[in-house]
Structure formats: C-alpha cells, structure tokens
C-alpha cells in the first residue's frame, strides 16, 4: 500500500518529528543528489509540474535536478510565455498542468498564500516553492540540513543550545519565516537582526528574538544567515498588492508610494552587512549562510561569501537533496 500523498506548504505548524523525518530523508538523498548513486527508478515515468509564476533560478533548477535525479520529467512553466500573461488565473493554470498529467506541482508565486490557494482544488501534492512574503519550506529545510551538518548535529537534527541569527530584510522574507518555524521547532534560538523598519519587534510573535545591533549579536551565534536585500520589494512597483486606498470598487490605479525602508546601500551596509571585519567577530566554528542570490558587496562581502566559513554552495547542493526528499515525501514514496 502506498502511503497517502500530502502537500508541503509551510513549516509553521509542522511537528518536530515530521521535520526530523524530512531532514533525515534529505540527508540520505545527498549521494544521489550529487550523482553518486542512482535513484532514477523512483519516479520513473512520472512528471513534476514546475509552476514558477515568479522569477527563480536556484529553486527552479534545483527542483528540476531533483525531479531528474528521481527519474521524473518536468513540465516547466515560465510565466512570461504562459497563459497567465493572457489572464489565466493561477488556479486554472495549475489545474491544467494537473490535467496534462503532472504527479505533483511545485508553485512559486509573488502572492502570499498562492500555494495554499492552489492546494485546495488540486488533487495532487503541492509543494510551496516560495509564496510572496509567507514561506519557502524547502529553502529552510536545506538551511537546517546545512547548519546541522556544519555543526555536527546531523545525526538527530537536535539543534538545542544553538543560536542562529537571520540578518536583513526579515519582515519581507519568506526564507526567514520558514527558518524561524523550522529552526525553533528543532530547538535552536533564532535571533532576527535588522533595522526596526525591516526587523520590527512584532516579529517576536513568531517565536524568535528581535535585535537591531548586529555587532552585539555576531559574537554570540553559531550560524548567521544573511538575507538578500530585496530591492524589488522596496522599490514601489515591486511592493506586492499596493492597494493604497483603492478599496471597494475597481478604482483607477494610483502611483505607489515607495516605503523607503532601505534608504541607501551605504546606510544599510554600515549597520547590517557581513563585512570581513564583522565576520572576524564570529565564534571560530560559526557558519555563514545565504539563500541567494547574493548581492556581493551589499549584504555580504566577497571575501566572506567565498571564505572558509561560507556554506553557500553546500546549501545549494543540499537543496537538490531536500527537494528529492520532499518530492518523495509528498508523493507517499516510502523512505
């Protein structure tokens, strides 16, 4: 009997045992992810729908590789050339890809809640590849796997006693939300760090600490995750759903008013960039992560990104393993 299928939409609310199971399965996938063992029989003959309604390089290629390593083909949708640009709704597109024959759907969209919305009518598993500012579960799983491996915790994925900083534009970050949920559930203390405009105190309701002084935090942590400064989310046009005052009726669109949360690159760097000097404040064993894409020289210096503490490329390799494990887990494939 195959196990029932399920969605992977958010890490908040997922039990610790399930998280650890997913991580253990991901760890077991690492050799296959690197091409050292062959698991292409597992999803042979099946297709994974990749619905990337928002631009992505890493996550899309990573899911593509994960599907291929498992022997599946991909139905790859790029929003520019799809019917979404003709006005088709996300749900219709998703249900059509399901009808074409996909066994699972990976959804990336700029709207928070988009994957949940698609999962309701879809009869096949939906994996959230990042929804707006809400969650990015597979990213946080690969981050947790990388942290656990780097710090010798990958036997049981118990992160008790570890302190992990997430630095930057945390309020706009789906990566941060998934990581806060997962790392806290695994026992770590998460500290989000940023200026009050990007790391407001209200984020403490998610179960993390909120700090504004990076120099105070860095010497205390075992891992630091630098977030990308998301200029496109602070540049007016890119701020999603700028409803302004257009409320009840279809009022004419108004020019968005830009929330100038990031005043300038130099002002941001002065307080929150991981420079070489700041990296020197870290504990000897501390590891540096970044979900990518990196704005080199903005949130992180070249020497740090490419330095000995950097786990950035290991994160990416782990991403393939996590996505292989997630596809199997969602499709009810036994471990």
């Amino acid at each position, binding site marked *: 009997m195959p196990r029932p299928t399920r969605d992977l939409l958010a890490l908040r609310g997922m039990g610790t045992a399930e998280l650890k199971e997913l991580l253990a399965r991901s760890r077991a996938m690492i050799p296959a992810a690197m091409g050292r063992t062959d698991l292409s029989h597992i999803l042979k003959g099946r297709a994974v729908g990749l619905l990337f309604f928002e631009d992505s390089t890493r996550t899309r290629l990573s899911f593509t590789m994960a599907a291929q390593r498992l022997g599946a083909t991909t139905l790859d949708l790029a929003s520019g050339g799809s019917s979404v640009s003709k006005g088709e*709704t996300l749900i219709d597109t998703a249900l059509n890809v399901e009808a074409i024959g996909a066994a699972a759907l990976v959804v990336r969209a700029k*709207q928070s809640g988009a994957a949940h919305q698609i999962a309701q009518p879809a009869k096949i598993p939906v994996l959230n590849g990042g929804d707006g500012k809400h969650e990015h579960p597979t990213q946080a799983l690969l981050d947790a796997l990388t942290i656990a491996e780097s710090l010798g915790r990958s036997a049981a994925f118990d992160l008790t006693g570890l302190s992990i900083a997430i630095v930057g534009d945390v309020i706009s970050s789906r990566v941060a939300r998934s990581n806060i949920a997962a790392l806290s559930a695994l026992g770590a203390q998460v500290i989000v760090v940023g200026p009050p405009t990007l790391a407001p105190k209200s984020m403490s309701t998610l179960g993390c600490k909120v700090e504004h002084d990076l120099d105070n935090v860095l010497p205390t942590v075992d891992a630091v995750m630098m977030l990308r400064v998301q200029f496109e989310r602070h540049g007016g046009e890119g701020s999603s*759903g700028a409803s302004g005052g*257009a409320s*009840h009726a279809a009022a004419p669109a*108004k020019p968005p008013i830009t929330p100038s949360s990031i005043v300038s690159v130099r002002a941001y760097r002065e307080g929150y960039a991981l420079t070489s000097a700041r990296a020197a404040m870290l504990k000897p064993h501390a590891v540096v992560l970044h979900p990518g894409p990196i704005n080199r020289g903005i949130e992180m210096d070249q020497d740090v990104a490419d330095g000995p503490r950097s786990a950035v490329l290991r994160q990416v390799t782990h991403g393939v393993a996590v996505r292989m494990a997630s596809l199997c887990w969602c499709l009810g494939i036994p471990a």
Partner: protein
Amino acid sequence: MARVLISGGRVIDPASGVDTVQDIAIEDDRIVEIGVKLAKSPADRIIDATGKLVVPGLIDPHVHLREPGAEHKETIESGTLAAAVGGFTTVCCMPNTTPALDTPEMVTFVDGRSRSTAHCRVYTVAAGTKGRRGEEPSEISLLARAGAVGISDDGDAIASAGVMARVLTMTKQVGLAFMQHCQDPTLTVGASMHAGEVSVRLGLGGWPRVAEELIIERDVRLNTSIGCRYHVQHLSSSGSVEIVRRARAAGQPVTAEASPHHLLLTHEAVGGADGFAYDTNAKMNPPLREASDIAAIKAGIADGTITVLATDHAPHSVEEKARPFEEAPFGIVGLETALPLYVESLVKTGVIDWPRLIAMMTVEPAKLCGLHRIGLGTLAMGGTADVTVIDPEQEWTIRLEDLAGKSRNTPFLGRRVGARVVLTMVGGQIRHERR
C-alpha cells in the same frame, strides 16, 4: 385606496419614544393611524405582527451599489432588493463608482435609475473631490442642490489637509455631513490586513490602527474652526473610539458608524480554521482587527460615542474574490444580514437594548443624512409608510439563497443567528415578505 393594518406588534419608534404594543394603519403610502386595537375593518390586508417588532424602515447610510461601472457586482436594482430583504427602506450609496458620483448630473442619474428600478429609497452621498482624486473640491453646492445627502470620497480619505479644509468648509455651507473614509494612504501601502500577529505570520502587509486614527485626529483638529458635521465611517480601531469620544465631549459635531463585521470578527478570520486560509471574505477596508478593538467599539456604542450602525455593503464577484489574497478587492456584502448580526453582537450580549439598536439604524442615520427633515426614520401619523417588521426570536442559518443581491462575498454563510426581518414596506408597498 388600499388600507393595510399591521396589528398586535411591539411598535418601537425611537424618534418619538414609543415602545408599546399597538396597531398601525396604512393607507396608500401614508401611516394614517397608530393606536391600540384599531378597527379591523375596513382593511384590504391585516398583517398579524403578534410577537414581532414593528419599527421604522431601516436606513443604511453606507452602501455600494456599483452602478454605474461595475454592474457585474451589483446594480441599483439588485442592491436595493438586498436592502429590502434586510429590512432597509432607505440606502445611501457611496460615490466610488465608475465614473465617480462627483457631479450633479451623476446624482441625477442615480436618482433616475432608482425611480425606475429600485426596491427601496436611494439617496446619493456624492464625492467631495473631482474624480475622488483628493486634489480639487467637487461642485459641492450643486451636488447638494441636486439631492446629495452627504459628501464623501469613500474608498479613499481626502489625504491632503489643505484640500480637506476646503471641502469641509464647502460642505458646512450646504449643511451636509462630510463622511470620511479614515485611511492615511501613506501608512497602508501594500497593506491587506490588520498589522498584527496574523499579518506577520502570513506574510501579508500590515495595516496599522494609526492609519485610521491619524486621519480622525487631523480632521477633528482641522474642523475645530470650521464646524462642519463630520462623520467617521466604518470605525475599526479602539483608538478611533477614544478620539471620537473626546471630540464629542468637547462639543464638536462629530459622529461615527460601526459595521457588523468589525463587531463579530477579528484578524484571525483571515487565517481561518487551519490558520492558512487566506480567506478573501475576511479582507476588509478598514481591516478586521483584534478582540480589544471589538470591546472598545462596543463600549463606544454603549456610551453613545458611536451613534450609527451601517453595513458598508460592498459586493464583489466570485472571480474577483477568488484572486490571491493581496490582489482580491476589499469588502463584503452586508445588507441582507446586518440586522441579525447586530442583534447577535449588541442586543443578545446586552450592550444595548432593542430600542437603541433601532434608533441607531433609523433616526440616527436619518439625522446624519438630513432625511429626518422629510419624515424618514420614524413612524408618524400622516407620515411616510416605511415600516419594517422583525421576528426578534427567529433562529435561522445564513445560506447562499438568503442573499438577494448579485454577489455572495460574505464570511457569515453558515452562521446561526437569532432574529429576522419578516416584512419590509416602502411607501406603503410591501417589498419583502417572509411568510
């Protein structure tokens, strides 16, 4: 000549202080007699209202009828049918149509459409600025002469203090109330729900209370030297209640209205049962807030700070509400369900009694819109026969088929409520009856 007798009901007419079991006789469009045990004949129709409440036709000073421009959501005909089903005999429509109701010609258009298609009385609240753009005052004197009963840019606040001062001055001159949609647009960029724990968890832009409070605070200050009647629409925040309370205590001509959803639901409704629902029927402007806000609004209703109960009836199509949360439009329909929901939140909980509830849905909105001067909002001998009959104990479940308008965007489907409108009479004609 047709004579109808509504007999044996508890007649509540807050405007005259009446609250007693009486009969009401109607001939054509007028109330001709109010008294105990009126003669049963001659009568063409006797309506037995034993055990029921007989009240002035309800008046809603805040609805969106969507005509012209968005007739797929609602029309004057369909919206007023929803009104009649909900016990409303008069509705005041907001000007955020396409084009906006910002000229006397548009007021006349609504008037004409209402006369030919409406199921109840319709009056226009006209825009305070041209195109509702908040830049240049509209022809407020001509709007008033054409029959506008209030001035508002509803859907948007007039954000510029300079423009607002001129609009208040012009509105004061014609004797109307200015009704403000209190939302500082610079504080709500990208916002789609209350700024709080749920918005942080769901990754949705947060709409802080201060976006509402700041506009009220500013307007109260601006209006100190102008003295226009100033009305706060669909108040949602505890701080707003306090600002209005202070202004009224200082003798300023300030009123405020509540809406049913801000009394019954919190921001948790966006997450729904599983926490991730992103329920667009819980997306409102202003947003659903927290239990402490509900408590403050109830306290404001109990102590007379808030005097008007409206619906903010805001129809949207199924397709529009099926969009992703941040892209879906704000608002819910409310006309068919407002009375039982207000009964549930305010009367059954002991915040106010039936006569005060009826006052807040009849004579108070009538005064706000100057409709008391033409005899609306009361049951008077010789007066207009706008009458609503309510079964105050009828238990029922709100279902799709109970909605009479074109749209069905409400989070209250499936909710059990305990009062129901059973008859709506507009100008002596029965426009809705539940037998």
